[in-house]
C-alpha cells in the first residue's frame, strides 16, 4: 500500500527552507587605515586568492588611503580636504599603528621586525594581490568626500563603486570587515 500525500503536505515539503549555497568567494570591507589593520587585510586577501578563492577588497573611509599613489602630495579641492591629505599621507609606506605608534617609531620598529622575520611588507602584498587577481574596489563616496580623484589612486585597481556594488558582491560570499 502506498502512502498518499495530501496537497497541504506537498506544499509544506516544497517550502522546506534550503540553506543558501556558500560561494567560494571572499569580500573584505577594508575601512581602517592603520598599519596593523591594512596588513592583515592584504595578507588575507592574497592568501585567499592563492587558495583559488575569488577575492574582492572594497576600500572605504580611512581604508581608502593605502590606495593613494605614493608621493601624491596634497590632494583635495578645499582647505579641509587639503588638511586631511596633509595629516594623512596616502600609500602603504606611511601607515600608523593603532597603538604604540610613538610618533612613527612604532611602525619603524614593526617594519624592522617584519623584515628580520621575512614578513612581506604591505607594499609587496598589495602588488601580490594585483598579480593574483584580487579585485581592489575604491569607494566612490569616500573619494568624493576626501577629495581624491581616480588619478590620485594607484593603477591596476577596479573602477570606483558604491555600497550597493560591494554588498551585491558580498551576497552569498564570506565577508570580513577590517
Amino acid at each position, binding site marked *: 500500500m502506498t502512502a498518499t500525500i495530501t496537497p497541504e503536505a506537498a506544499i509544506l515539503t516544497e517550502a522546506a527552507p534550503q540553506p543558501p549555497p556558500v560561494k567560494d568567494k571572499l569580500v573584505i570591507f577594508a575601512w581602517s587605515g592603520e598599519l596593523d589593520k591594512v596588513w592583515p587585510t592584504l595578507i588575507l586577501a592574497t592568501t585567499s586568492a592563492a587558495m*583559488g578563492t575569488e577575492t574582492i577588497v572594497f576600500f572605504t573611509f580611512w581604508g581608502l588611503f593605502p590606495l593613494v599613489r605614493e608621493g601624491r602630495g596634497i590632494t583635495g579641492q578645499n582647505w579641509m580636504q587639503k588638511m586631511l591629505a596633509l595629516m594623512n599621507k596616502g600609500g602603504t609606506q606611511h601607515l600608523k599603528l593603532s597603538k604604540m605608534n610613538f610618533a612613527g617609531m612604532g611602525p619603524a620598529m614593526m617594519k624592522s621586525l617584519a623584515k628580520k622575520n621575512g614578513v612581506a611588507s604591505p607594499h609587496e602584498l598589495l602588488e601580490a594581490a594585483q598579480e593574483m587577481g584580487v579585485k581592489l574596489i575604491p569607494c566612490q563616496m569616500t573619494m568624493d568626500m576626501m577629495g581624491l580623484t581616480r588619478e590620485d589612486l594607484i593603477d591596476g585597481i577596479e573602477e570606483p563603486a558604491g555600497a550597493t556594488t560591494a554588498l551585491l558582491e558580498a551576497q552569498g560570499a564570506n565577508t570580513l570587515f577590517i
Partner: protein
Amino acid sequence: MAIAVAQTLDVKGLSCPLPILRTAKAMMQMEPGERVEVLATDPGSVPDFTAWCTKTGNALVETSQADGVFRFVVEKAQR
C-alpha cells in the same frame, strides 16, 4: 629513489603568507602533474601547506623535516 621535481622553491626565512604565495605563483606556470619542491623554515607552513592543498586540490605528496628545514613536495592537480 628521489621523486623527480620540476623546480625547487627556496622560501627559507620567509614568514606567512609568503611561502604559500610564492608556491601558488610558481604553480600557476606549471603543468598539471608536475611537482614543485618547497624548502621552508616557517613552522606555520606545515599546517598551512596541508590546508592549502586540501582547498586547491593539489597533492601534498611529501612532507619532511631535516635540520630545521621543512620540505614539501606538491603535485599540481589535474584540471
